[in-house]
């Protein structure tokens, strides 16, 4: 009798461990997926920028500086390694692009150009997608991290050596604030 009880308890314990383990794996995969989504969108943006630059170039003789900044920011973002560095580089690229679009507003010829408008819409959309994908990713990471720390998941995570996940952000907090462009004003 006692043997049966022991077997039943062990079986329940194993089942319980499997459930928690599976839960953690699911969460980790969700985080991974969310990261892929960010990656896809970042790549999309990097691909769109050369198009935009080539279209805009002809019109903006006096704004070489702004354009060059976008190009160099893109190059930096492409070469950045590590989550934090990439986040910083991508933020800089966002800023540079924002400035470029602000300048485009001053060129009526550009504003009426169908091609430019389409590219602008695509880039704005990509920009949003990046920040949205990032939002989701950071939410999931926060969720995953809490799970790793609470009891009893903590034990399972420790036993199977689950690594933690890193936030994708340039700063400590994951709050995506409206990008403040103070430097424009100071020019």
């Amino acid at each position: 009798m006692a043997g049966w009880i022991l077997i039943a308890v062990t079986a329940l314990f194993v089942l319980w461990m499997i459930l928690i383990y599976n839960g953690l794996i699911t969460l980790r995969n969700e985080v991974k997926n969310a990261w892929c989504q960010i990656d896809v969108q970042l790549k999309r943006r990097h691909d769109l920028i050369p198009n935009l630059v080539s279209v805009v170039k002809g019109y903006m003789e006096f704004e070489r500086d702004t354009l060059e900044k976008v190009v160099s920011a893109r190059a930096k973002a492409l070469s950045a390694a590590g989550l934090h560095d990439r986040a910083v580089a991508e933020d800089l690229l966002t800023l540079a692009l924002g400035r470029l679009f602000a300048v485009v507003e001053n060129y009526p010829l550009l504003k009426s150009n169908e091609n430019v408008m389409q590219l602008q819409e695509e880039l704005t959309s990509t920009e949003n997608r990046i920040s949205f994908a990032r939002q989701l990713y950071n939410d999931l990471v926060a969720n995953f991290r809490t799970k790793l720390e609470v009891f009893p998941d903590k034990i399972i995570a420790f036993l199977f050596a689950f690594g933690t996940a890193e936030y994708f952000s340039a700063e400590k907090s994951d709050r995506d604030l409206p990008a403040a462009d103070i430097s424009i004003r100071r020019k």
Partner: protein
Amino acid sequence: MPLTFIDIEKQKSWRISFLFSFLLLIYFCLSITLFQSYFILSALFSESGLMKLWNQPEYLLISLAFSLIVAIIHFRFSAFGAVKSVMHSIGASLPDPEDGIHKRLMNIMEEIHIVTGNRRHMKCMVIPSLSMNAVAAADLKGEAVIAITEGLLSRLTRPQLEAVVAHEAYHILSEDCLETTVATSLFGMYASAVEKLEDFGYEDFRGFHPGFLLFWILLKLSFILSMFISREREYRADAASVRMTRNPLAMAEALHLLSRNWTGVGMISSGLEMLCIVSPQTTDLDESEGWWADLMSTHPPIRKRIEILLRMAHASISEFEEKADSKTEIQDISDDGGTIYYALNAWHKWQGPYGITELSTLRWLSPLTWISVVPGRRVERASENGLINALFTNRLNQGKEELSRFTCPSCKHPLVTVSYEKTRAYRCSFCRGILVENDKVPRIIARREKKCPDRIKSLAKAVVTDNQRAVVIKKLKGTDIKTKPLMICSQCKNPMFRTFYSLAYMIEIDRCGVCGVTWFDPDELEMLQCIIENKITPDAEL
């Protein structure tokens, strides 16, 4: 308030199952009552003796079984194809990828899918109507659609459209939408049955039976239930939309636009109003607060929704300020004793800090720009701030325009005296609305110098037809057409009432009864003139 989509997911599972079982219970009760009364009635007419039948337990069992079968069949058909039938009834179609504006909607939809982690596939559709509204629907088959009218699509800026789509997406993800869509299609049948009873039952008393009374009570109960849920979930959807787009002001602006414009009464039937972003038939109840209104109205007051959103905007600007403060020294900037300003530019990015002189040189600053003043940290329109408004007046003065004693009720801008159809009127140089003294209105509409453009003509026709429908529907339901106090008169500070110019010319205008002036939003005066000149009458089909 759910913060992340993970929270929403967690929350919805128990809520939906609870609500569904409750709705189903009501539904079964309804069917049983219906059958009961039918059997009782037929027993009365056949004079075979009511009591004899009533006492047989088999009878009860049979009616129960029968109603169950009918209920299941009805449920199966109404809940599964609900989205298709709703979209068909409002004539929505898929967006055209060649069209720039439609493409934008498709892009936004894609973005929303990303932020929600692709948990649910949502289609977007366009309703070919000039009115301004958005509808979301979902059914048991797993189909979900967000439909937006052409009118709304063309009038909203990108951030505003994002906010609206995010709001609707929340309804779908939280399964609010599934509840309402199914409830709408489930109870639609009974609603029309009862409406008929109300029309004929009382006069012809033989058709009325106590059995129907219970049935009627149950029906009203089910309405109250679905409406109660609807009101608080609008707040939650607003909050979720802000959480997604991080832009409370865009949502507030979109709501403001929706509250002032024609939201498509005739097009969206009263059964579907729970699915809309703003109720197509605004009543006094919708704009009032208190427990009764909370219970009976499908949508919360827009005023209150905007207020909450502005408070959120305040929270987000203080975070921004912290960031900005660390980078610049405030003392350099402020030039009038410590007051500094932040302003929101056309791309919905906060800019600043500025001193008042710096602010006055900004070319993009308009009466409708959102600003945040420190100290105080209130988020408001530039025109609501006395000091900044004085700047605008100054600008107008430099333009050598003749300023009148009136100010614009919507942008608080001083109105410029203009000559309109050879008489005096006051135009807001910012929003292009026109203020006319009441005695001059008949003069203006009697005269016609310029020809009425086709755009105004078709708009007037659509608006008049829609307003006519609204009036007919309200009359059928026995409710009065009441005026809505939406703006404050700039002269006497009394509320201005939004009402029809007259029942013959159904264009909505804002009127101040104390000062005797009428405010026309852009196009409203032209539409009124056009109606009278071209003898435009509403389309009769109803």
